[in-house]
């Protein structure tokens, strides 16, 4: 089942990546990033069957960090929205300066 799980992980990851690239809504982009994270989690879990419990521990940590990241990220989105009245990522070029 390892191969299948890894392939599933890859597919999910790619779909998530595609979503990040084609969606404009910052929240959906975020959601797609979560998709990527989960895809990676699947690989971890799949491989942990062969390599030991550490993989699962990693997933545990990933989830925790993801929770923190989501909290901060969503707060940023809220604060950006307050400023620009939009969450369309194409309208933001703050990184340029």
């Amino acid at each position: 089942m390892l191969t299948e799980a890894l392939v599933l992980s890859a597919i999910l990851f790619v779909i998530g990546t595609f979503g990040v690239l084609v969606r404009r809504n910052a929240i959906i982009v975020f959601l797609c990033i979560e998709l990527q994270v989960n895809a990676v989690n699947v690989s971890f879990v799949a491989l942990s069957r062969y390599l030991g419990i550490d993989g699962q521990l990693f997933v545990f940590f990933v989830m925790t960090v993801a929770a923190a990241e989501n909290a901060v990220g969503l707060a940023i989105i809220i604060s950006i929205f307050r400023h620009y009245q939009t969450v369309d990522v194409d309208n933001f070029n703050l990184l340029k300066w």
Partner: protein
Amino acid sequence: MTEFHPLLPGLIPLLPLLGFLGNGMLALVAGVRGAAELRAGAGAGKEKLGELAPPPWMRGLPSWIGPGAIGAAFLLTLMNFVGMARSGLEAPAIVRYWDWISTGGIRIEAALQLDQLSMIMMLVITGVGLLIHVFSVGYMREDPGYARYFAYLNLFVFFMLVLVMGASFPLMFVGWEGVGLCSYLLIGFWFEDREKADAGKKAFIVNRIGDFGFLVAIFLLFTSLGAVDYAGVFGAAPELLAYGGSTATAITLFLLIGAAGKSAQIPLYVWLPDAMAGPTPVSALIHAATMVTAGVYLVVRASVLFALAPAGSATVAAIGAATALFAATIALQQYDIKKVLAYSTVSQLGFMFMGVGAGAYVAGVFHLVTHAFFKGLLFLGAGAVIHSMHHALHATHKDWDAQDMRNMGGLRHKMPVTWVTMGIATLAIAGIWPFAGFFSKDEIVWYAGAARTGGYGALFTALWGVALVAAVLTAIYMTRLMVMTFYGSNRTGEREAEHLHEAPLVMTIPLSILAVLSLFGGWLNVPASLQESVFGGFGLLPMSDWLERWLEPVTELAQEIHLSHAGGYATASPLGGGAVLWAGIATGVALVTVGLTFRSVSKRGIRPASESGAPVGVVRGLLYHKWYVDELYDRVFVRPLLGASRIAWRWVDQILIDGSVNAVGSVFKALGWFGSLFQTGQVTTYAFVLTLGALAVLGALLL
């Protein structure tokens, strides 16, 4: 015959230097005081400018320090002169003070040389200088820059003494540039007047062109002879330099550039007429009696070199003759009294150059001395006239030009002493027996013709003719000056005429002394050939050939070289006739010219300057505008140089050099700009590029 021990020779230049320091201090104090007053009244208006009267003590001290220093130097010079005359000195006395420049490659001492030539020059400088200093006490009394004036004047005398006393060419160069500097400062003495400041600047820069030649000559001397001191150079020159060789010719030609710059010869004469912007006593001292004759001194000092380079000598004579004629023509049509005298000076310096170029070094020095007397006198006289005119015009607030002769006339009644003394000087410069100029000028003209036996026969024959014409022109323009200034009716205006009066004693005494010298100065060197004739006063005139014999130790070597290579001088003029006959012809022609000019100018109805326009006629216009030489120089040299400078700055420096530097910078800027295109600031783009990167890495790993 005792041995000659120079008496404190170092003190002679040191005294004027101390005078400079003393007066300089006073000048600075006065300047600081004036500045404080000026600042205090800065809001009050501009009319206060330049009218800040110095306190009385400020006027008294410089009057004593300035002339006092020169007087002391004159006394000391006289004592040395007596000592030298008694001893019959052959070799120059050299007094060494310190190693001035000693690099290991060259050694130049700060040393003074006292010989017959420098002694004559020192006497002229300190003697005439003293008279002019005394005259200045009266002339400059009212000026707020009184102390500064004497400081500059003393500094000038110091440098002039260094020039003639220095024992090496570099030391002469120190004096050479130093007097140029003082000339610059004194011409621009009233520096608030833009034109005067400009004139000073012009004098300095044109002089620097001459200095360039002098410097190159010094370099040539050092490389070809290995020495730059007189003793070394003149000792080595006859052996190391071939007669008529290219090195000797080159050295003399470069020296000539220097001499032409300082002595206002073609083509570098243009600064001297402008230099009349300075106070008139300055014109008398610097631009007539001493500094401008430094070129003649240089040629005589380097007579050995010039004797070795006949081409160089001939060039000197040719340039002198050309200048003498050219400047005389311009003097004919000038109305500014000082301008006439300025061109006259240029012309007379041309005569001296002609003389020394012809190998008649003594005649050159002789004319230098007499010229110092009568031209100094003329300038001082003109100064007295201007002083008087200025007062008269100032008293009635008339804005006429105080120097324009058309505004004068009839001054002989108002200023009798000035009139008589200037009359003597005019007769002297016109070359009428027995005045000083007759003997010296006659000798030069004679030698110009007599030198034709050497290599350049046709040239010297022509120069002789030129000299005669120039001598006639001299008589014409000087008579014209006298008539316009002193004869006829007064044109200054009725109310003004009441204010015209004779100068004070402190000014007329120097005039009188110089008049005496102009009268008898020629007796210094009555030629032996003339002595038995009426021109020699049938032997009544004393001191036959005194100057000739006095200077013999200095010129003897050059004369020997000349004699051994070019042979002796002709004994008859190019048109035949001996010295006595031509002396007679010359004085006769001069007398007739003076008389004719006197009549024709007197008859001419002269109107004040404001009522008469520019002269009519092509020739007169050309002469009035000085042959348009200033304009020509402006077009040919000044403007192209400025243009080239602008091009060098704007195009070469800013665009070509800085541009290419900045272009290199721009290349990297452009690269950066290209890179910044990828920085859109949009997350999606970065995410895409990141993915692309991941794909690339993965592809590289797996494929």
